[in-house]
């Protein structure tokens, strides 16, 4: 066995590198860990004015609930305030947005990547302009017609707007992924007896999975994290999770409400961790791409 590159570095460098990494990890993870820990305390501890250490030790939590951890924040948010409804709404919105954007994105991206015409370039350029616009500018334009046509407040409306905002980006990303796939691959498939669409489905898409998953994840994040569109376009009962959290924070008069927000934040963040971990390999190969040389 030859020594690995890392082992040949001088000790001091390795120590500096490791300690920097550890420091960075703490800085990056601290806010989340702090919130996670605090979400199992009562408001008086987490937002203690007396001593910030109370958030860690939680004397009030012990005196109020009898144990050092409490699930009351979660119970209040999910059951009392019906956060589960918002979670369901989020799920519907996110699944629809991802599916619709990916369908149009893969078909359109493939067509644009294989198009010999100049207009393909201009289409992509125009879509970039729309991508660069802040989402809120679109919302303000939509708001009035949506009210007049009685479309305001429903989930499908929000889905359509989110897809519209998301589509330029998915189109861009998928087009560049498709461009990395050699044309010879479609052409051999067509010589082997496929129509253009069969070549796309049987040959190109299997090679494209990392790209589709990476793009899907980004559109998922956009829909999942969106505040501007969902907050403006959805009625209270159709709210998704992010505006729901905002509404918890907006009504701090009631004691414990802030803790609902804190526990919801944890509920919103946890699935993201799982998702990224699960698709980690595809995302990495999708982001590094070029792994399709035949």
């Amino acid at each position, binding site marked *: 066995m030859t020594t690995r590159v890392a082992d040949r570095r001088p000790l001091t460098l390795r120590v500096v590198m490791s300690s920097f990494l550890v420091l960075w990890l703490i800085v990056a993870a601290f806010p989340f860990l702090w919130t996670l820990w605090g979400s199992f305390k009562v408001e008086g501890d987490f937002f203690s004015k007396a001593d910030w250490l109370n958030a860690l030790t939680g004397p009030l939590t012990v005196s109020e609930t009898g144990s050092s951890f409490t699930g009351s924040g979660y119970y209040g948010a999910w059951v009392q305030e019906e956060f589960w409804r918002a979670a369901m709404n989020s799920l519907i919105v996110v699944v629809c947005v991802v599916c619709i954007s990916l369908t149009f994105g893969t078909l359109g991206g493939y067509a644009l990547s294989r198009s010999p015409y100049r207009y393909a370039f201009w289409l992509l350029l125009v879509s970039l302009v729309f991508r660069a616009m802040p989402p809120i500018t679109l919302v303000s334009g939509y708001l009035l017609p949506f009210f007049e046509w009685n479309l305001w407040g429903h989930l499908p409306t929000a889905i359509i707007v989110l897809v519209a905002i998301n589509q330029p980006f998915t189109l861009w990303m998928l087009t560049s992924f498709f461009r990395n796939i050699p044309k010879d691959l479609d052409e*051999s498939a067509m*010589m082997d007896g496929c129509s253009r669409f069969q070549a796309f489905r049987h040959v190109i898409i299997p090679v494209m999975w990392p790209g589709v998953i990476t793009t899907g994840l980004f559109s998922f994040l956009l829909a999942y994290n969106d505040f501007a569109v969902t907050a403006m376009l959805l009625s209270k009962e159709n709210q998704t999770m992010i505006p729901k959290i905002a509404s918890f924070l907006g009504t701090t008069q009631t004691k414990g409400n802030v803790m609902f927000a804190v526990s919801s934040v944890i509920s919103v963040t946890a699935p993201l961790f799982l998702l990224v971990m699960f698709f980690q390999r595809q995302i990495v190969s999708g982001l590094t791409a070029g792994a399709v*040389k035949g």
Partner: protein
Amino acid sequence: MADIQLKGLSKRWGSFVGVKAMDLHIADGEFLVLLGPSGCGKTTTMRMIAGLEDASEGDILIGGTKVNGLEPKDRDIAMVFQSYGLYPTMSVYENIRFPLKVRKIPQAEHHERVMRAATTVELTEFLDRKPAALSGGQRQRVALARAIVRKPKVFLMDEPLSNLDAKLRVSTRAQIKNLHHELKTTTIYVTHDQIEAMTLADRVVVMSKGVVQQVGTPLEIYDRPANTFVAGFIGNPAMNLLRGEIRGGVFEGRNVRIPGFAGAADGPVHLGFRAEDAAVAQAGEVAAPIYSLELLGDASMATVQAGESLVAIKAPKDFQGRIGEPLAARIPASVCHLFDASSGERLPRSAS
């Protein structure tokens, strides 16, 4: 199996002409090689036959049927690509089987046909591997197996050997030749390598700038090039081309004087001869100081300046000479070819 006819086939992109009014008949079972430097339109011609590129003008007939408007899949053609075009997510077995699958050939036949194709190209040990785990030569053979698995009317091969190393190229070349002998399928083969063209072809089509320069058997093309382009492209080294002038049946140029062209019109011409047809002698038609000398192994190649260009002359390997020393060579008029000085076309020889 089928013959192929090209009638006035052209391809233009805007004002750029890729292929210009090409007429060609390829007989059933023939091995035809399209040969030319890159950008000469040979690949474009093949892609038009395949249906991957639309013809701007003209007709393509396969087995007597016009196929211009047909999709590639409906033309019953198999193609081997320069980059192989293997499907990276499928195993070798699945790659070879793919044409059978998409063409809805009965499942029961698949295994036998895949195995037969794999045996033909000696791939049976690698059937479970992914293309990424194969060497270049093996990938090439997978592409070949995928082409032969479903007995198409026509094979198209687009520089299939250019990504292989020299040694492998020779053995794969022999394999392709043998495969064609066995299957007797009409084959069109595109290459820029004249040795491939010479060894494989029944007939060679030499192209330049989208125009067919000459069509003929390898020997015809080697022995009777139709113009200076073909003469300068075929052979290693290519034919020597000397500028000079005919006067009274004698060709004269710098350091060169060849009599014996009785009947040839007076005026400027290009004269061509092959290095191996010249013989080093005490005195001869060419006399000039040696410009360079290369030992080839079985012979030496001496270069001299004559007729405003460098002229190669094949000498025996024990030829003793030094750069700068005078060299004379016999070049009888019978081994020479005359080409028109302006058009480059071959001039008919009334005499000899």
